[in-house]
């Protein structure tokens, strides 16, 4: 078996076509070709999806500071291009497994902001009925199998979802998000081996944000080229610029197409960065401020806005309209969460077993 690594080299090699297009649009500025309306519309959708996550999480910071929401809250700010870009490659029949830093994944998947916010408030209208909180968002109707707060714990489960779909010939893909920290866990390696051995339709979407909580990549991995290591399991694996939503989308589409064509699991190392600390508790003593600023200069939202402006696809007015709509959506989500009922104490033991849930097998 040969090690397949179709796009070795620098990050942008993942999506050569997109890379070409991007550089052209950058250089071409306003003298470029006429606006491709469908591509422009698509970019507007990507932008709105990323902005929804950004606004949602900035609101979470306010609400956390006001003690409206509690528990661990892990913010995704800076990483939005990954969730939004990968989700573009998935259909509603595909399954998704997430981590404890999952607001972005959930919103990109289409779980309404109101249901996620209500979950942050621990209310019955939350997408997990208030049992899960920030780290455990679920929506079975969207095949969103939720946030695992055990690093790498979602990976074996994702392999099982892929196995079931594979055994029944469903033709769907299971995508599992996890981070560079999970890559150090045995469960990642067990799952990568199993998925490759059984040719499972699994997209391993590694969000490499360079830190496993406070431990830098180079302090936890003897070999920091994660895509190369994943390729050693006999699956296509390559690194992608995770700060470029269109590059992520291109890569994820290519991987998903390969998976749907029956070539087994694919691994994407999505190189990204969180602008905020690990969680609301984290004093962020382990990162250089200059490093954070360097990455902020590559903000995936600003990058897409710049690109769209260069293409004459986005006016200030249109951007303001999008942001206004999102703020209103969030206001409604927060209001609804504030007013939503809390679970009565007598329901404490509900959902421990199906008998207490009313689920019939």
């Amino acid at each position, binding site marked *: 078996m040969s090690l397949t690594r179709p796009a070795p080299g620098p990050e942008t090699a993942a999506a050569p076509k997109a890379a070409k297009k991007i550089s052209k649009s950058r250089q071409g500025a306003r003298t470029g070709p006429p606006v491709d309306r469908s591509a422009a519309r698509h970019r507007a959708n990507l932008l709105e999806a990323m902005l929804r996550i950004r606004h949602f999480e900035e609101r979470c910071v306010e609400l956390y500071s006001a003690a409206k929401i509690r528990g661990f809250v892990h913010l995704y700010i800076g990483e939005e291009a990954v969730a939004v870009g990968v989700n573009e490659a998935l259909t509603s029949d595909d*399954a998704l*497994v997430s981590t404890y830093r999952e607001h972005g994944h959930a919103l990109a998947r289409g779980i309404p902001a109101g249901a996620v916010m209500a979950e942050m408030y621990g209310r019955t209208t*939350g*997408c*997990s*009925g*208030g*049992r*899960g909180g920030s780290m*455990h968002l*679920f*929506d*079975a109707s969207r095949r969103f*199998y*939720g946030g*695992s707060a*055990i690093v790498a*714990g979602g*990976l*074996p*489960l*994702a*392999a*099982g*979802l*892929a*196995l*079931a*779909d594979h*055994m*029944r010939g469903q033709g769907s893909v*299971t995508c599992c998000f996890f981070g560079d920290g999970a890559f150090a866990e*045995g*469960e990642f390696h*067990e*799952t990568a*081996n*199993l998925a490759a*051995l059984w040719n499972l339709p699994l997209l391993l979407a590694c969000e490499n944000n360079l830190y496993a909580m406070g431990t830098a990549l180079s302090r936890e991995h003897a070999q920091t080229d994660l895509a190369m290591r994943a390729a050693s399991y006999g699956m296509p694996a390559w690194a992608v610029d995770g700060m470029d939503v269109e590059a992520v989308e291109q890569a994820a589409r290519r991987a998903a197409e390969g998976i749907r064509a029956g070539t087994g699991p694919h691994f994407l190392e999505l190189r990204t960065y969180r602008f905020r600390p690990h969680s609301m508790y984290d004093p962020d003593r382990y990162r250089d401020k200059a490093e954070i600023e360097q990455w902020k200069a590559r903000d995936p939202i600003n990058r897409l806005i710049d690109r769209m402006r260069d293409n004459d696809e986005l006016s200030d007015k249109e951007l303001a309209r999008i942001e206004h709509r999102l703020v209103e959506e969030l206001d409604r989500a927060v209001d609804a969460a504030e007013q939503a009922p809390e679970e009565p104490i007598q329901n404490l033991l*509900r*959902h*421990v*077993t*199906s008998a207490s*849930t*009313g*689920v*019939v*097998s």
Partner: protein
Amino acid sequence: MGAGGTETSKTTYREAMREALRDALRSDDRVFLMGEDVGRYGGCFGVSLGLLEEFGPERVRDTPLSESAFVGAGIGAALAGMRPIVEIMTVNFSLLALDQILNNAATLLHMSGGQLPVPLVIRMTTGAGRQLAAQHSHSLEGWYAHIPGIRVVAPATIEDARLMLATALTDPDPVLIFEHGSLYNASGERTPTTAPVDLDHAAIRRPGTDISVITYGGSLPKALVAADELAAEGISAEVVDLRTLRPLDDEAIGASVARTHHAVVVDEAWRTGSLAAEVSARIAERSLYELDGPVERVCSAEVPIPYARRLEEAALPQTADIVAAAHRAVD
């Protein structure tokens, strides 16, 4: 041999378990078996011998030595509508998958607000008595019985070995089946019944009036021999087979103690923090005024199970220990 005979015949616990697996695979195409060496090898203890030939490698699936991955894969497959049966060679190895069992299988339903039941069956061998030393011999089912969200059963008879699996597969939640390694060769009558068994109730394996010997799994045969010896001495022991370790059948335990007013709890696990401790506590909570004396416990010595035969035998509950405990309780 078919499943639907009308006359009793001889069988073994191992064959009964295999028959249960074959019936499950035949009757529901969502069911598949996976684990280490379940296919070509025929199962570490020979339970699944011949199933690969009948059902093929998709449904009798050999796995790498990756307990966490294949147990987690069972959970994921269950979420996606399959009915997986995952075999783990021994309970000691199951610790490599404890994360998946506790943090996912037992937790997903609640954590998701009731959206994600996990209809998964996990079978594993437990217990000592075969000189397999300290990493193949422990009885950790009591740890699993600690966990809300899963059902834990321990078939101790040939009939339960044959029939518990089918009921477990109808449960929308995870069921862990603990098969004591010393039982596989146990032989006995294969009754013609195909009536489903429940996984809620303990069973009285021998009625009695003087003392309740409450046990499960691999200790049941020892308890029955002890009851014979006690009977010869004029002590009538009632032997209660818990069958289901979670949830415990409080009613059956209480009713037996109310009849006999004495209790010995026999559990091959270590005494401290054991299932025997839980049963004793429940007797104290519910049946204290029925008791004519303290509850006795017969458990394993608090030592990693040793290899040497004499030492291993000394570490485990033996018939003589049960008889002695019964005497202490009633005298």
